């Protein structure tokens, strides 16, 4: 109803006149407001009551609220720590950071392995080979219907029945399986390796740039310039060259069998093995079903058209079917990745010191229940949100390809 010249009748026909809200139960707007005030009010009252109780209880138990306990010395022995840690001097904060790193270690490795294994299973499930497809079917059916916790306990029990260090069996030279976990050779990290890694990263950027140039030229001329020689040069030859120029240092730290334990080398703990194995084996069953339905969602005509163009079956799968299936597959896959990350919290049952386990110990030692739980929730919310954001970005990216 501002200055513009509008026929008032026309205006009335376009938009309903703005009615003032009446203070009457028969006015839906009024009702809506009353309901909301009621719901929010009741909830606020409950929360206030709980907070009141909590404050009283905390005062009775002489527990100070706040996060000051994070700076106190922890004294929790932690087996696997990626950063410097000493129970005598390190704080609860340090311990929790190690816990977060340990959780991420399981989640990232788990997501990568489960994607590979699940995709293989999903493809096997569709194989023309009866034996292969039935085996994949049985795998999926059985593993999906058994609680993950039970599977983890089972794997952990199995890992513990591996031979002792004395009888550890070597799969490859320097790689030992025993009930102390998997021993692998480490090689001494020297500046030359860092430089080679830097060279590799520079090469990676170069390859990405080159492939976008190649795509552009393909769009213009119809002929795609060869990318693999450039990739080979930048990703393999260039880092190798840098490494060689710096003297090509290569010193392996091999694990050596001792009486009761190994000397040297890197260790993958039995708890980590059992947890990662359990998570991968379990989640892969779900991924397999997602991949299968994704592939089946690609219309049969796509297979036939690709075949008619003379593509070999492998190329049809890789270049025609999988890219299209990917779009169907990404959203459910994201929720499986989230599940895997959240399920890694079951580590606490088999004694792997992830963030949940360390948080629980902290909570028992300090009595800071609310802060401990809040921290834990915050950590998982941040991880979950990061995964969703990344997968949504990736989803949007591959969706753009569609015309």
């Amino acid at each position, binding site marked *: 109803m501002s200055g513009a010249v509008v026929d008032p009748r026309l205006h009335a026909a376009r938009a309903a006149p703005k009615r003032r809200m009446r203070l009457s139960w028969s006015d*839906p707007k009024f009702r*809506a407001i009353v*309901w*909301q005030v009621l*719901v*929010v009010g009741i*909830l606020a009252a409950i929360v206030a009551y*709980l907070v009141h*109780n*909590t404050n009283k*209880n*905390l005062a009775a138990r002489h527990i100070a609220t706040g996060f000051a306990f994070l700076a106190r010395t922890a004294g929790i022995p932690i087996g696997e720590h990626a950063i410097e840690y000493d129970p005598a001097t390190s704080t609860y904060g340090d311990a929790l950071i190690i816990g977060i790193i340990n959780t991420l270690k399981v989640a990232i490795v788990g997501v990568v392995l489960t994607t590979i294994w699940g995709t*293989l299973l999903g493809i*096997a499930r*569709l*194989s*023309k*080979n*009866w*034996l*292969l497809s039935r*085996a994949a079917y049985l795998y999926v*059916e*059985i593993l*999906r*219907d*058994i*609680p993950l*916790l*039970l*599977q983890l*306990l*089972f794997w952990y*029990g*199995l890992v513990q029945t591996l031979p002792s260090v004395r009888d550890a069996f070597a799969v490859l030279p320097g790689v030992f399986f025993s009930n102390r976990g998997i021993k692998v050779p480490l090689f001494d990290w020297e500046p030359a390796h860092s430089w080679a890694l830097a060279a590799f990263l520079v090469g990676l950027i170069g390859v990405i740039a080159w492939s976008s140039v190649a795509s552009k030229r393909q769009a213009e001329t119809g002929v795609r310039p060869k990318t693999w020689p450039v990739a080979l040069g930048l990703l393999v030859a260039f880092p190798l060259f840098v490494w060689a120029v710096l003297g090509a240092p290569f010193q392996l730290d091999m694990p050596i069998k001792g009486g009761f334990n190994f000397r040297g080398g890197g260790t993958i703990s039995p708890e980590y093995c059992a947890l990662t194995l359990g998570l991968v084996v379990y989640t892969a069953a779900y991924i397999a079903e997602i991949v299968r339905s994704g*592939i*089946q969602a690609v219309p*049969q005509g796509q*297979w036939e058209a690709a075949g008619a163009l003379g593509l*070999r*079956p492998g190329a049809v*799968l890789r270049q025609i*079917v999988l890219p299209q299936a990917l779009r169907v597959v990404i959203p459910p896959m994201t929720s499986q990745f989230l599940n895997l990350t*959240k399920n890694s*919290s*079951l580590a*606490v*049952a088999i004694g792997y010191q992830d963030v*949940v386990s360390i948080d*629980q110990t902290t*909570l028992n030692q300090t009595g800071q*229940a*609310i802060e*401990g*739980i809040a921290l*834990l*929730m915050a950590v*998982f*919310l941040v991880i*979950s949100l990061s995964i969703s954001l990344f997968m949504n970005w990736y989803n949007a990216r591959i969706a753009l390809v569609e015309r």
Partner: protein
Amino acid sequence: MSELATTNIDPVPATAGNAAIPNTSRARPPATVHGPVAWVKTNLFGSWLSSLATIVFGILLIRWAIGFFDWAILHAVWSVPEGANGPDVSACRDAKGVGACWAVIGEKYRFILFGRFPYDLQWRTALVIVLFIALYAVSAWRRFWRKELLLVWVATLVVIGVLMWGGILGLEFVPQDQWGGLPLTLILATFGLAFAFPLSVLVALGRRSTKLPAVKALCVLYVELIRGVPLITLLFMASVMFPLFLPEGVNIDKLLRAQVAIILFAGAYLAEVVRGGLQSLPKGQYEAADALGLSYWKKTGFIVLPQALRLVIPPLVNTFIGFFKDTSLVLIIGLFDLLSAGKIAISEPAWAAYSTEVYLVLAAIYFVFCYTMARYSRGLEREFSRARNR
């Protein structure tokens, strides 16, 4: 993996020697096109890669099968004699690594199934298991999908409560901390569903609400918060944080606290499933109900929910399978469900070495429940989609 069947496997290759088949209808097709030989040829030895996979995989499978048969049946120890102090497990120890020790199951099955429930009263827990299974069976039967089913649920759950607690009708009282085993797992899952489901419907409706932004925001917050954190954090919350919330002197049993955590957890996931059903309902249904002048609750109760809930029964069953498995997590806060009972059974030194056997049996129990539900859900889904496509 180069060979992929697409949607269905065509047993007869399109070009398979049509000319070779004589034009008389009575002549049997040659064995290379139909029959077991042809089946083996197309499905096991379709190409050289397929043949390779069949041979390698077949050999591995046969070796595993023989190994498992040897271990589980041929060299297994089925029972052990009673010794002076407890069972004599020397037979099992001798068979270790060669054969399974199923004696541990025979010795411990009552503890695994019923936990620490008083031994003489365990018929009550057995009856509870039977009642639960009967309840599931009745609910699965589509003929019984009517309002009376709700009464059946309430009645059955009350009877189950009476059987577990006792204290009336001449039944001896059994405190909650002695409950355990399979009944506890079924209680956590079923009561969890029974309470989480109405909650989830309300939350889903609230989340879809356009007129109540504050309620909608609360629902979104609840669902996203719960779905973003693992169940374990909620169970921890139940075991260490809930007691702080309560006024002085009031103490809620650990089982009940865990049950509340499971209800809250299940409610958020079920709400998303229900929301899916609400969204998939055609808009015309809402508009038609509005046009008839129905109030919000009448529209929801008579038009929207009956259709939307029917649509989401298969995913609801799938979610329920998830909860059934997730109840095993109460092990971590020290409740005696089926899995913890099994784990405690093998913590006894005499049986400590036979975890594999116990875990296999537990896995079989969980599998039977979950697989039955999964099959049911898939059957229902197929039926529904057939009805829709007609």
